C-alpha cells in the first residue's frame, strides 16, 4: 500500500494551510474579563447558540485549511495504490539510471499517444519524484545503446534532454544499455544503485549475448523494468519484411518485378484483404490485396514496364495500423541496359575454338557489334582475383579445376546477394574440390564421369519441365531438336540431404542434366556436361544460342550490380564504386557528408531515417570531406552518382514480448522488479491504483462551498 505523487512540487502548496490559520490568529480578539451578574443566563443562551455560533469560527478555519490542502493535493496528482511500492522513493540517497527505450517499436500508438511519448512523460514525472539528494543519469536503448546524460545534470536539464529526444527507427538493445547504466553506476559513490528500464518489452531487444554480467554487491543493483507494452496485443497488424526488385529479361519487353513480403503479426487472426500499394517516384502505381495466415508471411508481386534508363525509386505500403513505420518499405533500382556476365575459362587455349568459352561467348553475344543485351567478359582463373565480380549479374564457371584460394567465399557471397552462378563441367573438373568447396552452393554431389562406350547409344537430353520460364518459349520442334543432341560424356550426381533442387532437364539414362537451386538471393545452375564440343555437339546446334541465353538471363535475374544498396537503419554505407562521393541527400531533404575517417572507402553513418538516400559527388571546391552535418550542398543541377535505401529491421515489429522469467534470468545478480507505469492517465482501479486528484479537488470544492455558506450565514 502506498501513496505516490506524480507532481510532488505542488505539495508545497500545503504550506498555504498556514495562511487561514494565520488569518484566524490575527483576527482573534483579545480576551477581556468582566464581572457580570447574570452569568447563568449567559450560559443558558450560550447553550442554545453553541451549535451554530461557537464552532463556526473553527469550522471556518477548518474549511479554509481543507480547501487549500485539497487543492494542493489534487495538483500533486496523488496515486494511492494497494500494491505499489513507491519505487522512486529510496530510504537513502540513491544513484538512478533511467534507460529509455527509444526503438521504433515504441512508436506504437495507443489511445492517440505513442508508447515513447507515454514513457517520456512517465520519465519526466519519475525524475521529478526522485529526491533532490538522488543522482540521475539517462541512457537510450535503441541501437546503438548510448548514454544520454551522466551525473550532475539538474532536473531542468534532464527535462530538456528528454523533451528533445525522439523515438528512433532503430531496434532495441537493452543489454548494451544496461551495460552503459552499470558503467555509469560504477562511477557513483551512492550506496543504493538503481536502474529503471522503460520499455515495451519487445523480445527482439533482449538478446542474451548482449547482456553484461551484473556484479554481485550488497545491496544488489535494483533494476525496475517499467512495462509499457500495450495491454491488447495485435495492434500492430502487419509489417513489410522485405522487397525484392528484379528485372525480367526473358520477356520480350523489359519489365521490373517488385516482390514484397508481408508478415501477419497478429498472433491468432488471419489477415484478409490487407491493401498493398506500390508507389514509384511519389505516385501510386498499383494496388493489391493480400491475405496472410496468423504469424506467416505472404508475398505480393508487382510488375511494371521499364521506361527509360533512370533509377526506379519507390516504396510499397500496406494499410495503416498502430505502428505505421513498418507499413512501408523503400526500394531503389537501377535497371540494367546490359547483362554483364563473367565467363571463367577453366581450360584456355591459344587456339581460340579450343578454349572452353569459345562457343559460349559467341552464343551470348553472337555479333561483333553487340546487339544482345548480354555482355560477356572472359576471364582466366589467374585473372579472377583481380576482377570485381560485384559488377556482374552472373558468373559462368566453365570446366574449372580449382578456384583461387578462398575465392569460393566471394562467390558464395555473390550468389547470396542475388548473383547467378552457372557451372559447366569438363575434363578439368575435380569432383573432390567441387563437392568440398562448392558444396554449399549446389544441392548435389558429383559422383562419377559417365562416358558412352563405342557402339553404345549416346546420352540425350530430356526436357522435363516444359513450362519452366527458361524453356517455355521453345516449341515442340525445337525441343525435339534439343532432345536429339548426342552427349558422349556426362557427370552423374546425387542430391544432398535436405537441399531443395529442381531438375528441369535430365539425360536419357536418368541422371540430372541441369540442376537448379537457389542460394540466398541468387540462383545456381549446374550443367552436367561441357559447354564446348569436348563432351557433346550441343554448342554447334542452332538451339544452343537461345537455350544458353535464356538460362543465363534466368540465372542473372536482371540484377545489374549486386553491390549492396539496401541497408538497415543505423548501418553505415560504404562507398566502393569509382568516383569520390561528397554529399548524401537524406530522406528529409537535408544534405550530409561522408565521414572523414577513411577517405579510400568513405563511410556514411547518418542512416537514421528509413528512405532513399542519394549520393552526390564532391564538388571541386569541396574535395575534402566537410564536417558532419555541414550545411554545404552539391552544386545546383548535380545528378546523383549513387543511391541506397535504408529500411527498418522488422524483427523489432514482432509482437512477441520477453517473459518476466526470462528478464529475471538475463538480469541475474540484480534485484529485478517489473512494474506497471502508474500515472494519472493509465491508473486503473483494477490493478489496485487510485488517482486521488479528483477526490481531493472535490474536497476542496466542498470546503469552499461550506466556507461560503458559513460566511453568508454569519
Amino acid at each position, binding site marked *: 500500500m502506498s501513496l505516490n505523487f506524480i507532481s510532488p512540487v505542488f505539495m508545497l502548496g500545503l504550506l498555504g494551510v498556514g495562511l487561514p490559520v494565520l488569518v484566524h490568529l490575527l483576527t482573534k480578539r483579545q480576551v477581556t474579563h468582566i464581572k457580570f451578574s447574570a452569568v447563568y443566563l449567559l*450560559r443558558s*443562551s450560550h447553550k442554545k447558540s453553541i451549535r451554530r455560533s461557537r464552532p463556526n469560527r473553527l469550522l471556518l478555519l477548518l474549511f479554509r485549511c481543507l480547501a487549500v490542502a485539497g487543492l494542493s493535493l489534487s495538483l500533486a496528482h496523488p496515486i494511492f495504490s494497494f500494491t505499489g511500492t513507491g519505487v522512486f522513493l529510496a530510504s537513502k540517497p540513491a544513484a538512478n539510471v533511467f534507460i529509455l527505450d527509444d526503438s521504433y517499436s515504441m512508436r506504437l500508438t495507443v489511445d492517440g499517444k505513442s508508447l515513447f511519448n507515454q514513457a517520456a512523460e512517465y520519465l519526466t514525472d519519475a525524475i521529478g519524484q526522485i529526491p533532490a539528494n538522488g543522482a540521475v543519469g539517462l541512457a537510450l536503448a535503441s541501437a546503438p545503446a548510448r548514454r544520454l546524460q551522466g551525473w550532475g545534470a539538474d532536473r531542468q536539464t534532464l527535462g530538456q534532454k528528454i523533451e528533445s529526444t525522439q523515438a528512433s527507427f532503430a531496434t532495441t538493445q537493452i543489454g548494451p544499455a544496461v551495460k552503459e547504466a552499470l558503467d555509469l553506476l560504477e562511477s557513483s559513490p551512492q550506496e543504493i544503485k538503481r536502474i529503471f528500464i522503460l520499455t515495451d518489452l519487445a523480445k527482439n531487444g533482449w538478446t542474451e549475448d548482449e547482456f553484461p554480467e551484473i556484479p554481485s554487491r550488497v545491496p544488489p543493483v535494483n533494476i525496475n523494468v517499467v512495462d509499457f507494452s500495450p495491454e491488447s496485443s495485435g495492434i500492430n497488424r502487419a509489417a513489410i519484411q522485405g522487397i525484392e526488385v528484379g528485372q525480367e529479361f526473358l520477356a520480350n519487353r523489359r519489365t521490373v518485378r517488385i516482390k514484397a513480403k508481408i508478415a501477419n503479426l497478429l498472433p491468432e487472426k488471419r489477415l484478409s484483404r490487407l491493401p498493398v500499394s506500390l508507389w514509384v517516384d511519389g505516385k501510386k502505381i498499383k494496388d493489391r490485396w493480400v491475405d496472410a495466415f496468423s504469424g506467416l508471411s505472404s508475398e505480393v508481386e508487382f510488375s511494371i514496364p521499364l521506361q527509360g534508363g533512370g533509377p526506379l525509386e519507390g516504396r510499397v505500403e500496406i494499410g495503416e495500423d498502430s505502428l505505421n513505420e513498418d507499413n512501408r518499405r523503400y526500394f531503389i533500382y537501377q535497371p540494367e541496359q546490359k547483362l554483364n556476365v563473367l565467363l571463367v575459362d577453366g581450360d584456355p587455349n591459344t587456339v581460340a575454338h579450343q578454349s572452353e568459352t569459345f562457343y559460349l561467348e559467341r552464343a551470348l553475344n553472337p555479333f561483333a557489334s553487340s546487339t544482345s543485351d548480354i555482355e560477356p567478359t572472359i576471364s582466366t582463373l589467374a585473372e579472377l582475383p583481380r576482377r570485381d565480380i560485384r559488377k556482374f549479374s552472373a558468373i559462368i564457371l566453365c570446366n574449372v579445376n580449382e578456384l583461387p584460394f578462398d575465392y569460393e567465399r566471394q562467390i558464395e557471397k555473390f550468389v547470396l546477394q542475388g548473383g547467378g552462378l552457372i557451372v559447366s563441367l569438363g575434363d578439368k573438373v575435380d569432383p573432390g574440390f567441387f563437392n568440398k568447396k562448392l558444396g554449399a552452393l549446389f544441392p548435389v554431389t558429383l559422383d562419377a564421369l559417365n562416358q558412352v562406350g563405342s557402339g553404345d547409344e549416346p546420352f540425350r537430353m530430356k526436357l522435363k519441365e516444359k513450362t519452366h520460364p527458361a524453356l517455355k518459349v521453345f516449341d515442340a520442334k525445337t525441343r525435339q531438336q534439343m532432345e536429339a543432341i548426342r552427349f558422349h560424356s556426362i557427370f552423374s550426381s546425387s542430391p544432398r540431404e535436405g537441399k531443395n533442387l529442381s531438375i528441369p532437364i535430365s539425360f536419357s539414362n536418368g541422371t540430372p542434366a541441369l540442376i537448379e537451386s537457389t542460394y540466398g538471393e541468387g540462383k545456381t545452375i549446374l550443367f552436367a556436361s561441357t559447354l564446348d564440343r569436348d563432351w557433346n555437339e550441343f554448342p554447334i546446334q542452332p538451339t544452343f544460342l537461345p537455350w544458353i541465353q535464356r538460362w543465363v538471363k534466368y540465372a542473372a535475374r536482371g540484377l545489374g550490380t549486386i553491390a549492396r544498396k539496401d541497408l538497415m537503419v543505423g548501418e553505415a554505407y560504404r562507398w566502393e564504386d569509382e568516383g569520390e562521393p561528397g554529399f548524401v541527400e537524406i530522406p528529409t531533404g537535408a544534405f550530409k557528408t561522408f565521414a572523414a575517417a577513411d577517405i579510400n572507402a568513405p563511410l556514411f553513418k547518418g542512416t537514421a531515417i528509413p528512405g532513399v538516400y542519394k549520393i552526390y559527388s564532391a564538388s571541386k571546391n569541396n574535395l575534402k570531406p566537410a564536417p558532419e552535418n555541414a550545411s554545404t550542398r552539391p552544386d545546383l543541377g548535380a545528378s546523383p552518382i549513387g543511391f541506397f535505401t535504408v529500411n527498418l529491421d522488422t524483427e523489432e515489429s514482432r509482437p512477441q514480448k520477453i517473459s518476466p522469467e526470462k528478464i529475471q534470468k538475463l538480469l541475474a545478480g540484480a534485484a529485478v522488479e517489473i512494474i506497471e507505469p502508474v500515472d494519472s492517465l493509465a491508473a486503473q482501479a483494477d490493478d489496485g491504483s487510485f488517482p486521488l486528484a479528483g477526490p481531493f479537488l472535490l474536497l476542496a470544492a466542498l470546503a469552499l462551498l461550506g466556507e461560503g455558506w458559513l460566511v453568508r450565514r454569519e
Partner: protein
Amino acid sequence: MVDSNQLLQSSELFSRVALLKVRAKDLVEGLLSGHHRSRHKGSSVEFAEYKDYSPGDEIRHIDWKVVGKTDKYHVKQFEESTNIKCTLMLDSSGSMGYQPPKENSAEVSKWNYAQVLAAALSYLFLKQFDAAGLVLFNDQAVRRIPPRSKPSHFQNILNELAAMEPAGNTGLGEAIGQIIERLPGRSLVILVSDLFLKHDDLEKNLKLMRARGIEVVLFHVLHPDEANLPFEGEIVFESLEDDPPIGLDPYEIRESYREAIQNQISAYGKICASLGVDYEFLQTSEPLEQALSYYLLKRNSLNKQ
C-alpha cells in the same frame, strides 16, 4: 484608641450616609407630597361608602337617617386612616453589585441606584408618619430594621444602607421565609431586586406574602448592560455570585440573551399582575426621580379608581 482604618471607614460611611440622605430627601421633596391612602376600610372620621347591613355589623354604624328615608338598613363605612408599616426589602446579593466596565464608569451603578431608591422610599414613608423598616438580604436576611415611624429612624435605615456591600447569592425564598413571620399583618413590602433568581420561584414567594395580606410592590432594577449585553469581543464573564466563569463572544448570543431577559421581565410582569402586586421595571439609565414619580402617579391613579 480608635484605629485609623476604622476612622477612615467611618468617615467614608458617614459621607455615604450623608450623600444618600441628601439624595433621598431631594428626591422626595421634589415629588408630589401626598398621603398614602389606606386601602383598608375601617373606623375613621372620613366617610367612605354605605353597605347593606348584615348580622355582625355594629349597630351603631347603622345610618338611621337612611333607614328613616328608605326603610332599609345601611351601615356607614369609613376610610380607615392608619399608619402604613412598610418594610423595604433590598436585594444585597452579589449580582446587585454589578459595575459597568471602566469605560462606562460614569454611569450609576445598580447598587447605588437601589440604595437611593430604598432611602428615598423610606424617607417618603417616614415623612408621612408611616412606619418604614428595612431588610437587606442575599440568600438570607442579612440586616433587618423593624418598621418605625419616628423621623429619626431614617438615620438608622441610612446607616444600614450605606454600610452594606452587596455579596453572596440571591435567595429570595430563604429571606422571605426568615422575615415573613415578623412582618406586621396587612403591611406593605417593597421589594427592590434585580430578580436574577436561579432557583427561587418568585410566584410562590409573592403568593406567600399576598396570602398573609401583605401588599407587595416590586421594583425590578437592572443595569442597561444586563438588559442589552452590549459588550464586544472575546470576553470571559466572571460571575458576581457563585456561577463558574464563561468565555464567549457576546455577539454570538446577544439575540438569545436579550430574548431571555425580555421573557423574564414579561413573565415577572404577568405573575405580579395575577397576584395584585405592583411591578415596576427600572433601568439605572432612567433618572430615579422620573421613575419614582411615574410610579407614584400610577399608584395614586389606581387608588382613586
